[in-house]
Structure formats: C-alpha cells, structure tokens
C-alpha cells in the first residue's frame, strides 16, 4: 500500500514540477545568452541592464525553489484535508503509510530542487573554466570527506544537509495538519503555521544554544586539560562538533514531533469541509 500511495502521488505531482523546473532552466539559458549579448559577465562589461537581468533570473530560480516547497505541501493539504480527503482518508491504508508514501515524493522533489538550483545557477553565471574546475574539485572534495583528519562537524553538516529535505517535508505536513484544525481559511492557516513553527523553532534553537553554549565550551576545555594538549584550534573544533550534534538532535526531535502530530491529526482530528 505504501508503494501504491507513493506511485500515485508521484504521478500526480511530477507533471507540474517537471514543467516548472524545465521552464526555469530555459529562463536561466535565455538570461545567460541575454547577459552575454550585452557583453556582461565574461565580456566584463557588466552594465546595469545585465546586472538587473541576472538578478531577475536569480529571483526566478529562487521563486521556483520556494514554489516546489509550497507545491509539495499544497498537494498534501489538498489530497488529505480538502474534499479529496474524503477519498484519501477512506482508503484502506494507515496514517503512517499516507505520510511516508506522500512524504517520500516530497523528499525526492525537495532534494532534486536543491540540485536543480545549483545547476541553474551554474548555467546562469559559471564560465566554462569554472565548470571544469568544479568537475575537477568535486571528486577531491568527496574523497577528502572520507580521509581520517576530516573534522566530525563536517560529517555532521553533511548529515544534516541530507536530513533537511525530510525535516522540511514533515514540517510542511505538520503545518497542513495544524491548518486543517481551523474552521475557515485553512490554506492561509497552513502557511501561517509553517512560518509560526519556523519562528518558534529558531527561538528555541537560540535559547538552547544560549543555555548550553557555555557548558559546551567548558566541557571541551575540561576534556582538553585532561588530555594535556593545549592548543587553540582543537577546543574550537570540539565545541563546534558538540553544537552541531545539538542542532542535529534538535531538528531530529522536532521532525519526530511533527510526524506524531501529523499522525494524531490524521487519526483523530480530521476536520474535512
């Protein structure tokens, strides 16, 4: 059933997102050509027009990135909490299967979206030498990730990047679930919930860091003194590792919380129009 949910959701969301991203790439190419014709960027004659054009293109890419987030959330909202929910919620599937099945499509698209934005920006601004440099450096960067002296926080950063699409998706879904509880203007309430949640998360994150920060520094210095090897570099690194772990743990806890919130609403608090 999980596979079937995924299959139909994938089929439903792909056409529009493919079209939007395709159009985005075309815009990037056209703007690049336009800028080149104005002798901007590589011709080093960066006129006001060329700069404006580039800004417009970057904004278009940004809009498409934001739209992808919005659309994956909108699809969940629409299929579960509007009239379509009368069918979705009476399918012989569990709330877990619904969240995971639909969530995977969103996670995939949010990840693709990120890669797409990188490619679109490369098309827009990178010179051929930049591209060859990137292609040359990328394998090295990946290889160095696996070398022994890579600080742990780099790995943690990579891990948190990989987890971002998941936490993003479940946060969007949780917002839709909260929006569903309102009597009217549910879509607006969903969007409001999303920004509300983000804001509270930021504040909480800052508070936690403010409380734990000094302790973290003390812990690392103490560990340092025990080892007796005093340098300025290592304690900073250790503090960063611990902070990274803390941030990661915080977002994982949030994501798990969002997941259970979604499940609870789907099981007990549906409020279909």
């Amino acid at each position, binding site marked *: 059933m999980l596979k079937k949910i995924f299959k139909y959701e994938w089929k*439903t969301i792909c056409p529009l997102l493919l079209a939007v991203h395709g159009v985005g790439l075309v815009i990037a190419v056209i703007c690049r050509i336009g800028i080149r014709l104005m002798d901007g960027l590589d011709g080093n004659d960066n006129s006001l027009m060329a700069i404006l054009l580039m800004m417009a293109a970057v904004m278009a890419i940004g809009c498409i990135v934001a739209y992808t987030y919005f659309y994956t959330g909108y699809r969940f909202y629409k299929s579960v909490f509007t009239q379509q929910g009368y069918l979705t*919620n*009476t399918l012989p*599937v569990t709330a877990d299967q619904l969240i995971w099945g639909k969530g995977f499509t969103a996670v995939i698209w949010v990840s693709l979206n990120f890669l797409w934005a990188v490619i679109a920006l490369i098309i827009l601004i990178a010179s051929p030498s930049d591209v060859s440099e990137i292609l040359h450096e990328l394998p090295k960067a990946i290889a160095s990730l696996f070398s022994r002296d890579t600080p742990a926080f780099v790995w943690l950063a990579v891990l948190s990047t990989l987890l971002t699409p998941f936490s993003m998706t479940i946060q969007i879904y949780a917002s839709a679930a909260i929006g569903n509880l309102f009597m009217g203007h549910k879509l607006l309430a969903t969007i409001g919930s999303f920004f509300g949640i983000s804001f509270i998360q930021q504040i909480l994150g800052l508070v936690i860091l403010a409380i734990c920060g000094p302790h973290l520094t003390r812990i690392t210095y103490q560990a340092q003194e025990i080892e007796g090897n005093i340098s300025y570099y290592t304690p900073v690194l250790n503090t960063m590792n611990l902070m990274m772990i803390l941030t990661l743990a915080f977002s994982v806890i949030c994501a798990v919380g969002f997941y259970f919130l979604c499940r609870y609403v789907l099981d007990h608090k549906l409020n279909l129009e």
Partner: protein
Amino acid sequence: MSTILQCENLSKRYGARTALDNISLKLDSGRIIGLLGPNGSGKSTLIKLINDLLSPTAGTLLIDGHAPGLETKKIVSYLPERTYLDENLKVSSYISYFADFYGDFDTSRALDMLQRLDIDPDLRIKTLSKGTQEKVQLILVMSRRARLYCLDEPIAGVDPAARDYILSTIINNYDENATILISTHLISDVENILDEVVFIQNGHIRLQAQVDDIRCNQGNSIDGLFREVFKC
C-alpha cells in the same frame, strides 16, 4: 442474518454542540436502509464516524465486529455528499486507482456502467458536467463489492432523470449479502427501495422499523410518517 453495524451509547460532540447523543443502533446484513432526518440531524456525522473520518467522543461503533480503521475501510464503500474527484485526472486514472487500492473493486463492471452512460474513460474530470462527475463517483463507489455501502445524500439536488439513474444503479449493483445505508431527507423518492428506516433527529434515534411494518400497521407511507414524526 448477521449484524454489519452496531453502535452502543455512541456520542459525538463538536465543542459545545452535540451532533449525536448517546445513540444505540444495530443494522443487519442484506438490507437497504434509509437514514432519514432533517438537515443537521446527525446523519452525516454518523456516516463520517462509520468511515473513520471522525472519532467518537464516547461509546463504541463496530462494523462487522471491528472498530473503524484499516479493516473496516476494506469493506465499507462510501459516497460522500460532495464530489472528491481531482479535476486534473482522467476517469480511467480513478478506475485504476480504485482497482489498486480496493481488493473488492470490479473494473469490468465500472467500465460497463461508464460505457452505458457514454462516458469516455479518457476524459479528464474537469471536462465533465457536475452531474456527470457525480455519476462517475457513484459508479466508482457501487463497483466495489463491499459489505456496507454508505451513501450520503446521493439524490440531493439532481434532476428526476438523474435521480432515476442513481436509484437504478444502486438497485442493479446491490448484492444480497451487502447492506446499503442511504442518508437523505428526500424520502418519497427513495422509500420504494427501502427495507428498513432509521429516523434521526437532533442526534437522537427516533424510530427504527421495517417499512412494510409501517405500511401494514399504520397504513401510512414512510414520507407520511416522517411528516407526522417531524411535524414543525
């Protein structure tokens, strides 16, 4: 005859408002049952509880011995008051959707009914008229070989020809072991196809009876009795 649906002391409150107040009800298999009551009497609430779209505030509800959930969704076919079809999809997408998710869906029956109505399965939902969309939804719901069908106001706001089509679709697809629960306030239109009626008012069950008993004992039509019971 086995019991398909059983409620005991079932209540549903929305905040301060009580939609269903401590009702107890037992429905048998193999019957066409009318759930009759004025607007806002609790008909839709009961049907949503059966379909696990709402959770009871108190009491129990069992469908074929199971509380609403995964198992009951496999055997309950539900036609909501509103159409739920996604405008951008094709009719054929819904056929395969239902066939994929519901083990009891009969694809050939659905295609046959579409063909009789001259509906091309390759059309998108948005190209169909509102009335045709409702018929497509009814065809999907009635093409399942379910144990319990819940039809919420299937004939509200349709013209007489469409109403005849809907009623004959219900009769033609009815299987002797299944139960059909039809909620409506348009009683004279459906009373000839009913075996049994449940009158509901302000969240209370006012009456549950066999239609022939009402006709024999009271010499009254269901519509006539309804007007007496719910006299303003």
